[in-house]
């Protein structure tokens, strides 16, 4: 038990912060979000090929640094501070855990070194049109037709799909014997019958797309793993990704608080810095309480992503995801309020954080959905009516 960063972790954090402060200013972030696929490929290459961020949590055997989710979380947190648009979340925080949990050895050897080297970008397609957070409600079907397999249906809110080389598609499978299971199918993004439609989102810093599968032929080998239901491994990987969203949210919340604190020290009204008014002071104090609480949760959950078995991880991940999302929403909302009129304008950074906070809180399960999941995890008996997303 050692609930503090090691020296190595501290160093990773400091160098990541220094790098992003130099390379990912907020104007640059805005520019990147308007670029093709919504991110800056040059920056991405620096982050991956040069700095090795994409391989940080990949085992050394597959070309990574062999570290864990705490180190990955540090990188997610620093990118969250800057809202850096990049394929980092989709490829490194989401697809990589899915591969590590579910893929066969030869699949790992094929994909992981390429991800670690910054040469492969991946996305996970798991959400249906409504946005259900329950993986039993995926919108893609995998059907056995004779000896062939066919993928059809739609996936939505797929983070990073536009730029992905590799799509990991979660599908409900029915084999020739009509037995049901959940599968993850690897599909190259250029495959015939796969149509990727970029969707314009309120949060411009995290591009998403809808993907339509029209009778896409795949083979049994395209499934991750061999003949096993993917639910348990997928759930674990999703929970790991949720802990990374939590760390990222804390980064955004932390930056929002710092920026608005600096502003209220400068802005003068009634002949005083507005930060001298107790109403402002107390509001920021309450905000800081949320941020500090979220930090504790995010790092606890990052540890859990490494150390805990599935059920305990589920509770930790849901706790961190909802707690950090709520905190980020509240902080970003307060930041607009305390900036006054200027905080409501397009050119100010405040709304970018506000929109990212909301978008993140709706990604992979809303705070309410996660709280219901925690209740279930606490042993409170199942009920009829649960949040949809």
């Amino acid at each position, binding site marked *: 038990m050692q609930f503090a960063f090691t020296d190595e972790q501290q160093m990773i954090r400091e160098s990541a912060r220094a790098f992003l402060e130099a390379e990912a200013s907020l104007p640059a972030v805005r520019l990147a979000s308007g670029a093709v696929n919504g991110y800056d490929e040059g920056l991405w290459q620096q982050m991956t090929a040069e700095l090795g961020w994409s391989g940080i949590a990949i085992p050394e055997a597959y070309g990574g640094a062999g570290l864990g989710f705490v180190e990955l979380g540090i990188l997610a947190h620093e990118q969250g501070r800057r809202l850096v648009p990049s394929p980092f979340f989709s490829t490194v925080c989401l697809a990589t855990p899915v591969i590590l949990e579910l893929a066969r050895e030869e699949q790992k050897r094929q994909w992981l070194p390429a991800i670690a080297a910054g040469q492969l970008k991946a996305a996970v397609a798991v959400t249906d049109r409504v946005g259900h957070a329950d993986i039993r409600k995926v919108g893609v079907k995998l059907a056995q037709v004779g000896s062939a397999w066919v993928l059809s249906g739609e996936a939505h809110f797929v983070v990073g799909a536009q730029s992905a080389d590799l799509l990991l598609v979660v599908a409900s499978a029915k084999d020739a014997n009509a037995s049901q299971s959940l599968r993850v199918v690897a599909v190259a993004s250029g495959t015939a019958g796969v149509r990727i439609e970029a969707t314009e989102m309120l949060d411009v810093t995290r591009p998403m797309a809808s993907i339509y599968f029209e009778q896409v032929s795949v083979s049994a080998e395209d499934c991750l793993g061999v003949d096993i239901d993917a639910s348990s491994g997928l759930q674990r990987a999703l929970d790991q990704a949720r802990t990374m969203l939590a760390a990222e949210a804390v980064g955004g919340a932390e930056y929002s608080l710092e920026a608005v604190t600096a502003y209220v020290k400068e802005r003068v009204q009634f002949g005083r*810095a507005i930060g001298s008014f107790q109403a402002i002071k107390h509001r920021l104090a309450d905000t800081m309480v949320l941020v500090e609480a979220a930090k504790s949760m995010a790092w606890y959950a990052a540890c859990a992503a490494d150390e805990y078995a599935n059920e305990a991880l589920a509770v930790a991940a849901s706790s961190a995801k909802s707690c950090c999302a709520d905190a980020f929403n509240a902080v970003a909302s307060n930041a607009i309020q305390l900036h006054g009129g200027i905080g409501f304008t397009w050119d100010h950074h405040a709304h970018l954080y506000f929109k990212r906070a909301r978008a993140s809180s709706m990604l992979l399960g809303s705070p309410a959905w996660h709280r219901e999941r925690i209740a279930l995890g606490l042993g409170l008996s199942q009920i009829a009516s649960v949040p949809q997303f």
Partner: protein
Amino acid sequence: MKIGFSAAQEQFRNEVATWLAEQLSGPYADLRGVSSHTAMVERRRVWEAELGRARLSSVGWPVEWGGRGASLAEQVIFAEEYARAKAPSRLNHLGVELLAPTLLSYGTEAQKTRFLEPIVMGKEIWCQGYSEPNAGSDLANVATRARLESGPNGDEWVIDGQKIWTSLAAFADWIFVLCRTEEGSRGNRGLSYLLVPMHQAGVTVRPIREMTGHAEFNETFFTGARTAAANIVGAPGEGWKVAMATLAFERGVSTLAQQMDFTNEFEALVKAAQANGQATDPLIRQRIAEASIGLSVMRYSALRMLTNAESGALSHEAFTYRLYWGVWRKKLGELAMDVLGPSGEYAHGDSPLAHDLQHMFLFSRSDTIYGGTSQIQRNQIAERALGLPKEPRGN
């Protein structure tokens, strides 16, 4: 105390509803449901004139100024029916609801004669020039200056400075401006309340893009802008008193119209929740019920406020009303997004209904900022309604 309406009042309701239905299914069908500040401006000028001709522009005004001298109950009815008919939002609401009552109280006879008729008939659209970059919450810190100069057109005020958050400025014909007319004065002394034509070289308007993606507010720059010496309301140096009176009219019957807009937004939200199944989520239901309670609170608080205002008193609920609705609508926006779920995150929603709700959510973030932040509102309540000590100014 009674909340029902009399038969005569219901008769008035019927008349208004019929007229509106005819107009909005007939010649003005294109204006039905138009709510943005900035859409279809020319058509809405025509609509304003139509309302004026029917004496429906300001039913509460005296008959001699183009109104109907309607009772409070009738004004309530008009506001309800106007919103129910989805009539377009009032282009000239700043003229009708803020400037005109100010002129009726503080204007000269000549000013009333010159300005009221074009307002009630929709011929001149007004905007408001109060806030400045360094005079937001601290409105008395106004720095825009005006000086009286003689010239070929007689004595004129010459105005220099910058106003901000001037909604409607992009097409308004006139602006009422709070500016400093006494050199070296500070705070709320030495200010004057001027009426200034917008269509002149000395006035420049620059739209401000908001986080909604739209530009409903503007910056308005005055560089040697001019207006006739007579276009001052109240005495020189008494602008603060007049400006505060104008703000008080924000608590007028216009609040009822706004409430009906809120009701429409609430109903849209309920519709969305029923459509996507969220209406069966017990958590969402609680919040919908809470929002519905808020609508009743606003309605009956406004009625108390208006009734008390008739007797001249600024009563407790009048202080709390502004804060209440700002907070309420922000919560409504958050509820709307939770109802929509992930698909609410599409930049324009995935349906017109979703788009409207999303826009409401984003715009509502300013509801606790403009026209006095919630922090300023709380100061007012604490100091003026509860009698707690005043917050000291800095140096």
